[in-house]
């Protein structure tokens, strides 16, 4: 690995990203974007819908390239898909034709592990997310929360040092979401990966993260960064009644609200 072990896990330095829309026009999703994620740090990114939050993650994976600026992972520039990265998608990204255990084992097998240790690891991970009973079921037979737990096991089995999450729990109902938050914090505290968690849910961001980045409405750039010093371990289901939590969420919401309103106004203008 890189000799430089003190460098931040992820750095985005003056990054811009432009797209070509289907009708051939250039559109800026990200402009002069700066972010730095320390090793083992949990960062949440919030911003109005459609502002370019997901783009930041795609730049880190190497699935997309910056139009300007530099993206560095573990001190080295991103070049292709980095094996140290894990990604949890917003929508269901499980392979529907594979059983639960075959989904979890996919990563190690792709990476050339022998089937026997790979399946042993997969069974271990299924046990950690309490799905051992459902190993041979297919994804469509599971509930939304169970499918998400399979996704987490599928990602964590590769032991990523960097975990990117793109609104992973937005499709779940509120109660299941809280359970998933607990699950995620438990897995994360064991793995000590650096996390970038993109969400539009401010409370989710505050409950989980060490730092919250607030983005402007598109083209996205960093508006402000808040450090959340609520001590860990946190109990997500109760944290929302904590005075510190209420104060900080009010402060950040004041900041975010302007951007949400601006984003909504712009979308309406676009439609009409």
């Amino acid at each position, binding site marked *: 690995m890189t000799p430089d072990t003190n460098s931040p896990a992820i750095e985005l330095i003056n990054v811009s990203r432009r797209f070509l829309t289907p009708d051939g026009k250039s559109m800026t999703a990200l402009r002069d974007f700066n972010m730095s994620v320390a090793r083992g740090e949990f960062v949440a990114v919030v911003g109005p819908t459609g502002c370019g939050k997901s783009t930041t993650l795609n730049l880190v*994976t190497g*699935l997309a390239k910056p139009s300007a600026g530099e993206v560095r992972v573990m001190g080295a520039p991103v070049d292709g*898909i980095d*094996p140290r*990265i*894990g*990604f949890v*998608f917003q*929508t*269901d*990204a*499980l*392979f*529907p*034709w*594979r*059983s639960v255990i075959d989904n979890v084992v*996919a*990563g190690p097998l*792709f*990476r050339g592990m022998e089937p026997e240790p790979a399946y042993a690891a997969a069974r271990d991970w299924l046990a950690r997310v309490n799905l051992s009973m459902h190993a041979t079921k*297919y994804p*469509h*037979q599971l509930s939304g929360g169970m499918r998400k737990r399979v996704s987490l096991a*599928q*990602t964590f089995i*590769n032991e990523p040092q960097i975990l990117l999450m793109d609104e992973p729990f937005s499709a779940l109902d509120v109660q299941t979401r809280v359970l998933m938050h607990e699950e995620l914090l438990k897995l994360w505290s064991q793995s000590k990966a650096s996390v970038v968690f993109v969400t539009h849910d401010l409370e989710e961001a505050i409950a989980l993260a060490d730092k919250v980045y607030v983005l402007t409405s598109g083209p996205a750039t960093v508006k402000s960064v808040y450090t959340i010093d609520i001590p860990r371990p946190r109990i997500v289901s109760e944290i929302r009644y904590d005075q510190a939590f209420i104060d900080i969420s009010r402060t950040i919401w004041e900041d975010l609200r302007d951007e949400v309103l601006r984003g909504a106004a712009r979308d309406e203008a676009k439609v009409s």
Partner: protein
Amino acid sequence: MTNTTTSSAPVFQPGTSDAEIEAAAALAARRRYFTVYFWRYFILVVFLGGWELAVRFKLIDPFFFASPWAIVLRLQEWVIEGTSEGPLWFHLWVTMEESLLGFFSGSIAGIIAGIALGRNRMLADVFSIYIKVINSVPRVVLAPIFIMIFGLGLTSKVALSFVMVFFVVFSNAFQGVVEADRNLLANAQILGAKGWQLTRSVVIPSAMSWIFASLHVSFGFAIVGAIVGEFVGARYGIGLLINVAKGSFDAAGMYAAIVIIMVVALAAEYAMTHVENKLAKWRPAPLQELH
């Protein structure tokens, strides 16, 4: 009066317990099943009976339309004594051999070409125009050309079956690959899949339902290819039997040959559905299956 904290659950009317609802549903399902089968057989009997009676009462001319009974007799004769051109089984086997060879070669080539072009935008852009051009040629007009090139034997019919099958399977495989879920592809890549792993574990499985949809139709097309080839020129085969029957104004013989092809095509369709269900057991089953 305004007690909002507790309220008793609604009391069910008698006759609405789970067991009763299930029993009623099972009864309704059975009734439906019998109704469907009743109408299926009823329509068949009316059709064949009407045909037979219309011939018996001279409403239609048996010279052109034969009659169900005449067709049964002809089939019996063919099965027991053989046709004027030799044993029926031999002709059937020849046609089947041509169709199966055309079907397998055409669908394998179609799947490979579809996946290759689906995975490679450049290839797809270059070749798409040629595929459209060739696809616009009505395939049966190739029959005389293939007979000229490959002769009266097996090869010309297999070639015709092949082109009938290839384009259907190709365009479905291509579509299936193009429509593979972007998230699944991205997920597999981040999990570590590269090149062939990605094709094998994501692209092919997600194109599989498209490919199977085309295989259902294309076995019929393979038979069409073989038989049209036999019409145009052959020494053996069901198509030849139809041709000979036509030459001797034997309407019953022509219909009998059609019946044989129908049976074969239906059997192949069932076999295919069976294989598909085996392979696609990961798909959600319909909530209630009614057969």
